[in-house]
């Protein structure tokens, strides 16, 4: 198979002496850095750490579900394990995954700026993340928490004696980290674009992160105040959600999902941005219908705010409000469909190669299509009654978030790895990892759709024996999936020292980030670029290369 990878001559190539990694030395130069690229690396290390903790908890869950009885651990322990798995994966991995690592690294470069607008706030956001993460770990070690990631009242406020307050405050703090990241992105994209970089010349990765940032900035504070009220209710006993005092627990559900539904778009939108970049680069073509893809991101962000009640269809809300929210849910599905078809047609008449990022992107398209379509099963209120609160929800969510988002994250990490580190990852091994992940993923989560159809409720430590076979399949798949995730961890670390020198633009991609050295300088650009070309303008790239050749010749 041919490849577009063009690396410099390995015998003479060197990593540039001066770059953001070597600019300053010592641990303090990292801990006090204002450089968005270094903060991105700090984030990358910390979210990987939390991903593996969350993953270990997932392994425990799958092991427990191998048998119908709760024999590996007591029901109480199981509840703590799945709660922690959810909390860590959602608030400490999925929400910051692409924005805080790839977004942090790339957005300033993509818009042609030397840094994010507020470098200190960016660093503060990482420290807040660490404090939130540390508090979560502390809550886990010192007895755990068994509310589930949804903190449902009055269970969380009055009926549990675990570390609800610590965890609630941890998420409150981590929430501010997310607000600051979003705020930084929005200001940067609005105010820091290079001369000539108009909105419609921005890469789609920037558009989708912009949409996600709007959700972060407007949604997260609602979660914050909700958690504050939960904590106050638990500690001093105010009565906003407590039904015995005249409060309404349904109000909690409204406020919680007002954030937590947009939150899934916070998680998936940046991933969609990665896919746009990768598919365009490896088919050597401008993204089909650039503006449709850009606007569909914004449409998802806007509609995303008005669908939260579909989490409450069976909670005794008025039938007519269900009607409205079900309709809006159907509408929010359309932009996702548009994106999928636009990506598919980007391939049309392209010149396609199949490097690892592209394989992950294909994986994303397949799994996200399944995840999205099964979302329609749940958005349609009549079928939601049967499917909600079962493993169908679990499978749907994991298809979108793990099959979609995590695939996109890995795709992006491989795609920009040469830019971030200056070295290539081992191609064959990583292609293998992508395939293993895809197979393992389907093995793990597809059986869960069937379990859900059969009615197996989620969050069950023990279940009726007739569900065992499918659960065994799922656990078996999870072991494959685990290998699929460990592999990149190992070979990416290996590549830091032994990978091939990547050069500036190994993929022959068009983005501004590929026109500068790898790893970039601390200030990204020696001089701020003046942008004349569109995003994904491969003809412009060809002309540039020709000019270079003639100049050199």
């Amino acid at each position, binding site marked *: 198979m041919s490849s577009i990878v063009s690396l410099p001559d390995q015998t003479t190539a060197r990593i540039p002496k001066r770059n953001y990694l070597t600019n300053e030395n010592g641990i303090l130069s990292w801990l006090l850095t204002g450089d968005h690229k270094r903060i991105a690396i700090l984030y990358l290390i910390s979210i990987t750490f939390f991903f593996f903790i969350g993953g270990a908890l997932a392994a425990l869950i799958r092991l427990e579900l191998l048998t119908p009885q709760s024999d590996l651990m007591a029901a109480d322990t199981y509840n703590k394990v799945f709660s922690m798995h959810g909390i860590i994966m959602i608030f400490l991995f999925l929400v910051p995954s692409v924005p805080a690592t790839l977004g942090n690294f790339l957005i*300033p470069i993509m818009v042609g*700026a*030397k*840094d*994010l*607008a*507020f*470098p200190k*706030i960016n660093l503060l956001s990482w420290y807040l993340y660490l404090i939130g993460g540390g508090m979560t770990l502390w809550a886990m070690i010192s007895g755990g928490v068994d509310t589930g990631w949804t903190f449902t009242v009055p269970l969380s406020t009055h009926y549990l004696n675990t570390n609800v307050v610590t965890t609630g405050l941890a998420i409150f703090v981590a929430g501010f980290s997310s*607000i600051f990241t979003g*705020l*930084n992105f*929005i*200001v*940067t994209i*609005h*105010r*820091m674009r290079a*001369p000539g970089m108009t909105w419609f010349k921005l890469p789609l990765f920037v558009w989708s992160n912009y949409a996600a940032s709007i959700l972060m*900035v*407007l*949604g*997260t*504070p*609602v979660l*914050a*105040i*909700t958690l*504050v*009220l939960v904590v*106050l*209710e638990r500690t*001093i*006993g*105010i*009565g*906003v959600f407590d039904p015995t*005092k*005249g*409060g*309404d627990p349904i*109000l909690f559900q409204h*406020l919680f999902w007002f954030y937590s539904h947009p939150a899934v778009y916070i998680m998936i939108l940046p991933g969609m941005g990665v896919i746009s970049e990768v598919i365009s680069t490896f088919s050597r073509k401008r993204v089909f219908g650039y503006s449709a893809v850009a606007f569909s991101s914004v449409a998802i962000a806007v509609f995303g705010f008005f669908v939260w009640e579909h989490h409450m269809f069976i909670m005794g809300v008025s039938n007519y409000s269900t009607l409205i929210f079900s309709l809006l849910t159907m509408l929010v599905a359309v932009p996702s469909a548009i994106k999928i078809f636009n990506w598919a047609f980007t391939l049309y008449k392209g010149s396609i190669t199949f490097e690892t990022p592209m394989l992950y992107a294909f994986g994303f398209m397949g799994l996200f299509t399944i995840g999205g379509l099964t979302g329609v099963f749940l958005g349609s209120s009549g079928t939601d009654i049967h499917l909600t609160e079962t493993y169908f929800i679990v499978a749907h969510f994991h298809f979108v978030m793990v099959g979609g988002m995590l695939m996109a994250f890995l795709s992006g990490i491989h795609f920009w790895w040469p830019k971030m580190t200056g070295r290539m990852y081992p191609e064959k091994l990583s292609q293998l990892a992508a395939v293993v992940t895809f197979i393992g993923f389907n093995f793990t989560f597809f059986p869960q759709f069937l379990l859900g159809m059969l009615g197996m409720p989620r969050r069950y430590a023990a279940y009726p024996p007739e569900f065992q076979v499918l659960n065994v399949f799922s656990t078996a798949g999870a072991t494959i999936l685990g290998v699929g995730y460990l592999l990149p961890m190992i070979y990416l670390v290996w590549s830091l020292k032994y990978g091939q020198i990547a050069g*500036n633009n190994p993929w022959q991609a068009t983005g*501004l980030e590929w*026109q*500068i*050295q790898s790893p970039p300088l601390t*200030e990204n*650009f*020696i*001089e*701020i*670029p*003046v*942008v004349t*070309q569109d995003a994904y303008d491969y003809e412009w790239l060809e002309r*540039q290369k020709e*000019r*270079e050749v003639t100049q050199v010749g």
Partner: protein
Amino acid sequence: MDSPTVALHESTHSEHPSYQRHHFVTMAQQRESASFGMWLFLLTEIMFFGGMFTAYLIYRNWYYPAFVAGSHTLSIVLGTTNTAVLITSSFTMAMGVWCAETRRRGGLILSIILTLILGLAFLGIKSVEYHEKWVQHHVPGLRFDAMSFVHPKAEPGQPAEPGLPLDMAQHTEVYFSLYFAMTGMHALHMIIGMGLLIFMLIKAIRGAYDNGNITFIENFGLYWHFVDIVWIFLFPLLYLISRHQ
């Protein structure tokens, strides 16, 4: 290998003031970014308080008599005084921003001190009100008793108001929950603001703003006015609306 996209951009380094951060091209860009960021942050603050305002609107609709009775227990005198104090502090803060803009160090320091004093006065009056609630057993959860709404005590010189039925009286706890949550969050914002004021005061005394780099003061001014505006909403909702029904 120099990037071909990197066209030579006019270098204006010589004209940059010392306080311009390296990643901004012009001082105007830096200032605009900062104020845009501040406005965005205030937007998140609106959503933050918005959650509580939503709760307030819903419960007020459900437990109207309890909310009326609850707001009757608040002291209009103290509330009005506090509103006046806070509006005045907004004025002194605006004066501070003006002084900073016109590089009057003395005026700036005086304004900051006045704002601090007014902020302290606000919190002082607020704590008097909180104390009153504690004495009257109107603190939800910790120290609450609805009986004072069932059998209200007659105030001197006025006939006793008719009491609430017990079930409605119990719902005043929801009112007070929201009262403490909303005013408490507001007070927390005041305290954070005053911390920043002290920080600014120290810097102002050292003359850090004499060079015209006053983005921080301007943005803090926005924050302080925002906190003021939140109170402008809280005061009528908690103290005034339907007081004489």
